[in-house]
């Protein structure tokens, strides 16, 4: 009896201790496999157990079951590369919006469309209605082995190939063709790497374009990106850029300047591309900090610097110097001490930045994006600089908040006769492309002719600026911008350029401090004087 009692007690004790022990041991994902979220194991499907020889073949197999997916994708900006600005109504997208990186996709298709969500867009006569040309794998490959080849109009390699990159070290490099069958059998939800394959490499290379998007975000530290870090929220791009019927949310032509909807609940529109969608309107414990959200975008404080992942972003691209040859008559390529190309005969001069403090501007939701067909009359500032995508807003504007930007400096060719930007035919194995012939007069003429746009025959170079919203690389809260970096009298305060608001700690009135200073000086001086006389007269008194 006594033994049974003891045994029971021991079992009871174990029952209490064991779960406690278990909960302190870290979870080992290998020991306890997590339940697959998907209800379909694609490797088991007969339709995918075949040897695929091309991308469109895979797509056909996908669409056999996912029979509306193709048409959904074909409505998305990832396919059309064309969008009307919801605020200005202007026709934009990669086809029309001007930038100060590579310029225009027109006449350069086979190279640029290596990031198109489709196959075979190699010239202006591309058929946008053929759903078999939708590229499912670029977004849905989970093996990390699918790669669209840089010069094959959106196709991956179908056989191994030797290739010499223009700006790489001399000599041919071997490129391997991905195993399409294996990839097709391992499809799933997009991860950071899928989106990153294009969006980290915008502008022709890692980190070049955005400043807040580069390959360091594939597996970022918590400090670099609190949302996407494995030890942070371990989120992927589409957790915020939610997709509805293959349409991504979030737009740089009309980024939401001030979310007036707040938390996005299941009954709402499933658009999480604002901080407020998840964090609401009053995310801070302190009311004083919540008071800022009316005028200051979350990103302004929570992304202290961009290009923080150890990869430099381009900050200047000067096309005007392209075309220099070395002593042997070979195109010149010069690298800086960090291994960055600082001069390329094909592209001109570059400057780079890491850990860059953004510039701050009012933004009310309206972006005035220049299109390549726009007349530039009246669009240049006093210094003759063209702002390619001016953001609108001021302190008085109830829709405006202060936003952080990477401001890209550029100098690019334009038509001095017609006063428009130009289509520059940079890529192609022909006798007019810039990167083959290093001759602007040929490449611009060819580009404009191909695009069917008027060209005066005369070109020059124009200084341009382009605003890139800084909205990724959100730091943990303890790394947010300290208050006194804006609330400061210092001339290099972060908001020194925002002058149309009263900013405590920065702004004061001369007369106020003069008057106050006189009052304090009078009070102290009066005391010293009065006390001095008292001491002097007391001494006299004693001396008597």
């Amino acid at each position, binding site marked *: 009896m006594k033994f049974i009692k003891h045994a029971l007690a021991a079992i009871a004790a174990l029952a209490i201790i064991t779960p406690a022990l278990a909960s302190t041991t870290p979870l080992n994902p290998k020991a306890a496999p997590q339940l697959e979220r998907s209800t379909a194991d694609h490797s088991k499907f007969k339709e995918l157990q075949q040897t695929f020889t091309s991308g469109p073949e895979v797509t056909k197999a996908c669409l056999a079951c996912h029979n509306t997916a193709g048409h959904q994708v074909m409505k998305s900006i990832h396919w059309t590369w064309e969008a009307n600005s919801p605020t200005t109504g202007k026709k934009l997208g990669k086809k029309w919006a001007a930038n100060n990186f590579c310029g225009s996709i027109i006449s350069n298709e086979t190279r640029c469309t290596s990031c198109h969500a489709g196959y075979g867009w190699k010239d202006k006569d591309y058929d946008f209605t053929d759903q078999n040309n939708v590229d499912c794998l670029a977004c849905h490959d989970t093996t990390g082995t699918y790669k669209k080849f840089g010069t094959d109009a959106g196709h991956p390699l179908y056989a191994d190939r030797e290739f010499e990159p223009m700006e790489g070290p001399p000599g041919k490099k071997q490129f391997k063709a991905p195993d399409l069958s294996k990839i097709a059998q391992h499809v799933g939800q997009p991860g950071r790497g899928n989106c990153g394959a294009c969006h980290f490499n915008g502008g022709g290379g890692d980190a070049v374009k955005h400043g807040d998007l580069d390959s360091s975000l594939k597996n970022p530290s918590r400090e670099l990106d609190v949302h996407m870090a494995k030890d942070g929220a371990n989120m992927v791009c589409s957790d915020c850029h939610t997709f509805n019927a293959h349409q991504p949310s979030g737009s740089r032509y009309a980024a939401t300047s001030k979310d007036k909807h707040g938390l996005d609940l299941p009954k709402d529109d499933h658009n999480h591309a604002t901080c407020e969608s998840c964090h609401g309107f009053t995310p801070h414990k302190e009311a*004083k900090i919540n008071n800022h959200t009316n005028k200051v975008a979350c990103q302004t404080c929570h992304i202290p610097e961009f290009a923080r992942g150890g990869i430099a972003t381009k900050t200047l691209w000067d096309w005007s110097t392209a075309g220099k040859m070395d002593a042997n008559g070979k195109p010149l390529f010069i690298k800086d001490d960090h291994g960055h190309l600082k001069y390329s005969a094909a592209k001109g001069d570059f400057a780079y930045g890491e850990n860059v403090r953004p510039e701050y501007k009012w933004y009310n939701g309206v972006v005035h994006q220049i299109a390549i067909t726009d007349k530039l009359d009246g669009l240049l500032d006093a210094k003759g600089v063209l702002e390619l995508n001016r953001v609108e807003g001021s302190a008085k504007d109830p829709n405006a908040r202060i936003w952080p930007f990477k401001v890209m400096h550029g100098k690019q060719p334009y038509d001095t006769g017609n006063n428009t930007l130009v289509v520059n035919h940079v890529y192609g194995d022909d006798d007019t492309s810039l990167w083959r012939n290093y001759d602007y007069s040929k490449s611009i003429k060819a580009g404009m002719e191909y695009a069917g746009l008027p060209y005066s025959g005369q070109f020059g170079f124009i200084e341009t600026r382009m605003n890139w919203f800084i909205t990724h690389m959100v730091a943990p809260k303890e790394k947010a911008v300290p208050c006194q970096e804006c609330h*400061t009298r210092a001339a290099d305060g972060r908001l020194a350029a925002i002058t149309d608001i009263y900013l405590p*700690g920065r*702004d*004061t009135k001369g007369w106020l401090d003069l008057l106050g200073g006189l009052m*304090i000086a009078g009070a102290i001086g*009066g*005391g010293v004087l009065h006390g001095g006389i008292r001491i002097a007269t007391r001494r006299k008194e004693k001396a008597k």
Partner: protein
Amino acid sequence: MSNRIYIYKRYERFWHWSQALLIITMMITGFEVHGSYLLLGFKKAVQLHTLAAWTLLTLWAFTIFWQFTTGEWRQYLPSLKNVGAMIKYYTIGIFTNSPHPFRKTVVQKHNPLQRLAYLALLAFISPLIWGSGLFYLFYGDWPRFGLDKSLSLETIATLHVLGAYMITAFFFIHVYLTTTGHTVFAHIKAMITGWEEEEHETPKGSKAH
């Protein structure tokens, strides 16, 4: 022998010194918020300034209760009687070792000039700084009450800083005047112990009081 009178009661002394600490804290943090210097960092300065303000408001709530229940509020009633004599004392008498024209008693612990000064503080500077301060503090709630159309942060901040300069000037004068007792530290001692020691010697060359 000196005459000792118990003039500052325990609560009054507690009020005075805690208020002094809070006001000094608010002066230091307030001018940092104004941008005059960098000491604690803007955020900490704002937090401490706000905490001190709420603490002082609480202290005042108790003090107002105390003033009325004890009848001490009468100490702040102004009177122009003898103001001339006080001015004359501070501008001439104090240097010629004349006797102080005012005798502190338990029912009259402030001299006429003090009464006027404290009343000015209470009636003018205090509403200015508290009024502007509360508007400043509740800036985020302006739109809810439609105040954002008619008020600007710049105006409120300017008024608040103006009040701050006045209080700071007052502070320095106040501290200096504590040294004008019969010894340099006599007034401060009284404010610590509560006991005021009266002069017993008639100074040379002055009339007996």
